[in-house]
């Protein structure tokens, strides 16, 4: 009788443990890079959700009420910081679950030089339009963001800390390799003038000391006459030979640029999920394209 009871108890404990162990942490993120980091670090202990549709820029996306409720109910909410995902300021999220992955390097935030802010009255405070937010393009900062995620996961599930640590180390190594590679590329010609088709390369620029200026073009839209004129004026002071694009530009735009002596290379910020590959493969391709831009 006693033995039977003991057996039943053991079976019950086993089931309970299994159940507990099977329950994954629910992680919600505001962009794809953080989702990638969380997946790499969390492994099978986490379920990562990045709910923005694939065809939107997550920085300007506004989730609906149902999605916001899903964020509220997650175990962890990974934020990019640097004023990324402006919708975060417009909703109610539990701070106890929020992780600002860039909180440790707020002093390295970059202001967008070409941004236009507004004030009320002649001496009012500015609105927060002027921070650049693609922090992960500086891979040393991306590593710090990954580390924040590791710390948050370890705190949430101490039993799996060793696994998280191993996974984080592997990711950190990958990011460090990328960092080293980009530094080496830029070091070949530190003053090489480059153009960015969109003001998303500020962290790349500041992190690696690139001589880069940006315009405001979209890869899938033909630039207007005034945009071509602005470009012309910029080229008079900034003699770039390559324009970095967020995505593959229109053939016409590329050829017109070529006529002006500007090549086109894709350096995808990868804010959203890529069609092919993952964050690492996209960045490695970016590095390769950059290498070509520095030839």
């Amino acid at each position, binding site marked *: 009788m006693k033995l039977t009871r003991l057996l039943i108890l053991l079976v019950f404990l086993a089931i309970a443990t299994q159940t507990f162990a099977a329950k994954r942490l629910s992680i919600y993120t505001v962009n794809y890079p953080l989702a990638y980091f969380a997946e790499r670090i969390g492994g099978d202990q986490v379920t990562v959700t990045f709910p923005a549709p694939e065809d939107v820029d997550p920085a300007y996306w506004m989730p609906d*009420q149902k999605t916001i409720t899903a964020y509220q109910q997650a175990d962890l909410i990974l934020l990019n910081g640097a004023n990324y995902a402006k919708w975060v300021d417009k*909703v109610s999220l*539990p*701070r*106890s679950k929020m992780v600002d992955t860039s909180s440790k390097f707020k002093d390295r935030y970059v202001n967008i030089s070409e941004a*236009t802010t*507004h004030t009320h009255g*002649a001496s009012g405070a500015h609105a927060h339009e002027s921070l650049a937010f693609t922090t992960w393009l500086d891979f040393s900062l991306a590593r710090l963001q990954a580390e924040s995620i590791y710390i948050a996961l370890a705190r949430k599930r101490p039993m799996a800390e060793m696994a998280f640590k191993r996974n984080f180390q592997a990711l950190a190594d990958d990011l460090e390799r990328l960092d080293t590679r980009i530094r080496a590329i830029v070091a070949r010609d530190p003053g090489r003038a480059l153009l960015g088709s969109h003001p998303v390369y500020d962290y790349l620029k500041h992190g690696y000391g690139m001589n880069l200026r940006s315009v405001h073009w979209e890869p899938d839209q033909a630039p207007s006459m005034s945009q071509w004129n602005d470009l012309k004026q910029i080229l008079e002071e900034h003699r770039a030979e390559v324009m970095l694009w967020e995505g593959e530009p229109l053939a016409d735009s590329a050829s017109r640029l070529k006529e002006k002596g500007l090549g086109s290379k894709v350096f995808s910020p990868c804010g959203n999920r890529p069609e092919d590959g993952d964050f690492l493969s996209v960045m490695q391709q970016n590095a390769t394209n950059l290498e070509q831009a520095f030839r």
Partner: protein
Amino acid sequence: MNSLYLAWQYIRFNKFKTIILVASITLIAVLPLSLEILLAESERQLLNRAESTPLLIGAKGSALDLAMNSLYFDDEVPELLTMAAADRVYDTDLALPIPLYVRFQTRGHPIVGTTFDYFDFRKLKIAKGQPLTMLGDCVLGAKVAAELELGPGDSLVSSPENLFDLAGVYPLKMKVVGVLTPNHSADDLAVFVDIKTAWIIQGLGHGHQDVTRTRDSSVILKRSEGNVAANAKLFHYTEITDENLDGFHFHGDTSIYPVSAVIAVPYDDKSGTLLRGRYLEGDESQQIILPAEVIDGLLQNIFRIRNVLDAVIALVGLATLLAIVLVFTLSLRLRQREIQTIFKLGCRKATISRMMMAEIVLILMFCAVLSSAALGVIDSNAEELVRRLFIG
């Protein structure tokens, strides 16, 4: 039995005198006891709320004002802090900060600006609708919803701070998205918004058309390199909708935005002690209090006052009892003839005494029944009475 019968007939016949006697005695009995019940209930409620709040951080000043405003949403707004105080707690990694901004009102009820964590902390559940999600949403306490007859889908406008409010605290039309289940605390009487919504009510955040892209030059004061200064003509939205939500923003660094207090929920006892230690510096501009201690101190003062009240009631009671004794004595004197008559008829003195006592017994019985009923009613409604009379 005969004595009781005769006493009952006498009482019935002299209704007016009986009612006054019964009312007086009942009042003397009920007053101190009901006061005791209400004070005990006050103590329970106040302490309960205070004990469930581990630590409270506020600007240096009255700890009592801080506690009363933060725990019970009292009208008296303490000296304000900034959001940096909450960030400071967060950065210590010792406690979860829950900022509170309890300053504004709507239709006589306090608007509590806070964060989503508050609801888990206070174990507040949604009875109808959903929790806060967007800016401009509000969730009603159970009693607020019942009193104002509002529910999800309705709207509520914040009240101006004073009649000639020119400082930007303009009425904001809030959307009711949910109603909480009754919590039997001050939360039932509050309207909850995200703290950012409270800042919008204050005018620190607002929504308007994008002035960096507008073609309407009449709203532009000045354009300069990298900045557009708008003038007062620029219309600010008074309601946050799905259509204009994107236009809402805050100016400056939100870490300097005001809060009235920060609830700090330590991760463990050691963390709580360590956190308290960080506020002991002499030049510290903030204070950290244990609400239970502050409220307990308040209650000690109340108990002191209660002693005075008890003494006053005792004196009044004594005076009333003396008056009642006088009434009985005069009544006896008035009934002297009756007593002589029945004595002449053959009634014993003991029987006469029994008859007089029976009248007193009956009156006391009525008083006991009335007192019990009154105290029963007070006891069963003590929670509600205390909230309305003392806590509000």
